[in-house]
């Protein structure tokens, strides 16, 4: 099963290779990995999308925790979370396709971030299914280039206030 693991690490050289080396050395799978500094510049936040059964995920979390440069590990699947991915897609557009491309951009609430007489460069963000869907629609037009950020995710705040409110309503 797919898991999204959020890892807070020291923002030092070599940390990425320690994490990557852990995954390759122990035969764990990485679907995607994204990393960037946090608000506190001494730390970085990694979002790792991986997969495996319960036992493997438990090992991944424990092994990550064991790394000295790892400060905190959260398996986001244990809570509610929101995740997003951004893709930048460069599409060939012949004259007759340009309107169609823009329609697709519109449907997916994507943006055109660069345009030439023969191409559009489109930026889209959302959950992976949405990215897959727009890629599928743009493919017939001819995708020249495609880059994806990999997923980033964050746990949802507990919705306590809303729940209390709902209960009240129900009682009334």
């Amino acid at each position, binding site marked *: 099963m797919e898991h999204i693991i959020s890892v807070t690490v020291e923002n030092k050289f070599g940390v990425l*290779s320690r994490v990557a080396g852990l995954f390759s050395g122990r035969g764990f799978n990485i679907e995607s990995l994204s990393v960037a500094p946090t608000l506190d510049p001494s730390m970085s936040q990694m979002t790792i999308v991986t997969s495996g059964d319960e036992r493997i995920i438990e090992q991944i979390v424990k092994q990550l925790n064991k790394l000295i440069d790892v400060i905190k590990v959260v398996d986001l699947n244990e809570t509610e979370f929101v995740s997003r991915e951004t893709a930048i897609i460069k599409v060939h557009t012949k004259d007759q396709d340009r309107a169609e491309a823009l329609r697709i951009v519109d449907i997916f609430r994507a943006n055109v971030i660069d345009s030439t007489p023969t191409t559009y460069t489109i930026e889209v963000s959302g959950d992976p299914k949405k990215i897959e869907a727009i890629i599928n629609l743009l493919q017939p037009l001819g995708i020249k280039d495609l880059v994806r950020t990999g997923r980033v995710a964050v746990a949802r705040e507990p919705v306590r206030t809303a729940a209390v409110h709902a209960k009240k309503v129900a009682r009334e």
Partner: protein
Amino acid sequence: MKLTGAEIFIECLKREGVKTVFALPGGVVLKIFDTFHQQKDVEVILTRHEQGAGHMAEGYAKATGKAGVCLVTSGPGMTNVITALADAYMDSVPLVCFSGQVPTSLIGNDAFQEADNVGLSRPCTKYNFLVKDVNDLAGMIKEAFYIATTGRPGPVLVDIPKDVSMAKTEFTYPSSVSIRGYNPTYEGNKWQIKQAAEAIMKAKKPILYVGGGVVFSKASQELLELAEMTQIPVDMTLMGLGAFPGEHPLSMGMLGMHGTYQANMAMHYSDLVIAIGARFDDRVTGKVSEFCPHAKVIHVDIDPTSIRKNIHVDIPIVGDCKTVLRELNQILRATVNGEQKDLRKPWWDQIREWQQAHPLTYQQEKDGPIKPQQVVKRLFELTKDRDPIVATDVGQHQMWAAQYFKLAKPNRWLTSGGLGTMGFGFPAAMGAQAAFRDRLVLCIAGDGSVQMNMQEMATAVVNKLPVKIIILNNGFHGMVRQWQDLFYEGRYASSYLDTTPDFVKLADAYGAVGLRVKKVGDLDAVLKEALSTDKPVIVDVPTYPYENCYPMIPAGGCNHEMILEDPPELKKKQSGSTKVTPEDKDTVLTA
């Protein structure tokens, strides 16, 4: 006053209480060696190969319980010490290795003797540092010792570029270390410990399964109390030997692939496995799906990743063995009563039956070839009053040593368990001897593995480290030959070593003492002579070449399905042969 990086390095070692460094110089560490040369507080033992330096530091660490220290140069110095780092990583040995590096301005330029030391050692160290600024040096060394010796111990590398060892700065040594991503858990969860105590009280067929963690956390006394109070039999792993007295009536000896019959049977049929500082290695579990099918499992370990890595655990307790055992004993002291003894009587009857049915055994004929087990047994009996430290290499001789050398105390057993490094024993023994100049240090070795670090005999002679090497010389890579006989129809592919070198002459060439046991009747006399010599000694004991090590659980086999003796066809083949026969040589040549 400003100090150079090299001076800071040595000052840090002194603050950490380091007395001995095992080292081999090279271009980029010359400044450090030069500084060493001008002081007398830290002894530098020059080895003949960096692998030797690494294993000596390991032996030092295992015997003393303190961090072992080695120092190597960049490039090949580093690649040579990697085996020792990997060995220390597998066996949780506290080791701090310092490596030289090319000047920071040249890093990445493929400079002479450059290697990516931090990259090379990353998968086989607990942590590693590249010191880019002399101002960071003292702090990093402090952290290195802290990381190596706390939590689950392990090797740490500090890579010091040449310019860092020459640069000057004010020296301040941090008084404490705080690393936000590293906080080992020492106290076990109280509720879990209570659960464990309850399970122990109720168990009808409990077994203690103890490993190297007990040795490292110095928990032998607590373990002894637990076992005696609850009358639970004790299985030891290869790394755990010595954690519990080998001749104690509750000791079942070693378990696992070449463990004793009773140790493995008790494990298989138990209803409660109490694992303490052991990691359910595949050499212990055998076939994982059929491992301890009737048992609940309690697992005490300081490393959370060890728990549920291979085996399902019912009561996990993350914590230091000593701390957890103390707490567990405290609960049990209040609750244990006579009832457990009655409850477990059938279990003990069963265990005694197993012990009597298949004790460790071998046949030593009076005028026959020398059996390797006989050598270990006699060595044990002749030396046990002197509380020796025993190192081994890897292979048949290691298993016989584990079976027959029944150590009474921890930190006496130096062996390579996880990585299985041939050539480990002799340098490890020297490391222990360097720490304890007056103690008796033995190295039980095979003729195959001892040759892997034979060059260190020069180090032993020059530094007056009077290690006694006893070579069980069967002319083979014995364990390989055993597997070939059992699983490869007796084709001795690359396992026959022939009769060279002459170890007696070799010892002589190095300036050590060489002795040979010619027949079994001479065994005691020669061993005694060796033991009373104050120089390094090689005792060459030509042993019966076809002796196999039993019991044996074939790889991936189930723990209660042990091979206990040679299968009939093998017995027939080997009857009467004491030397490698011409037919065997043919198989050697044609294989």
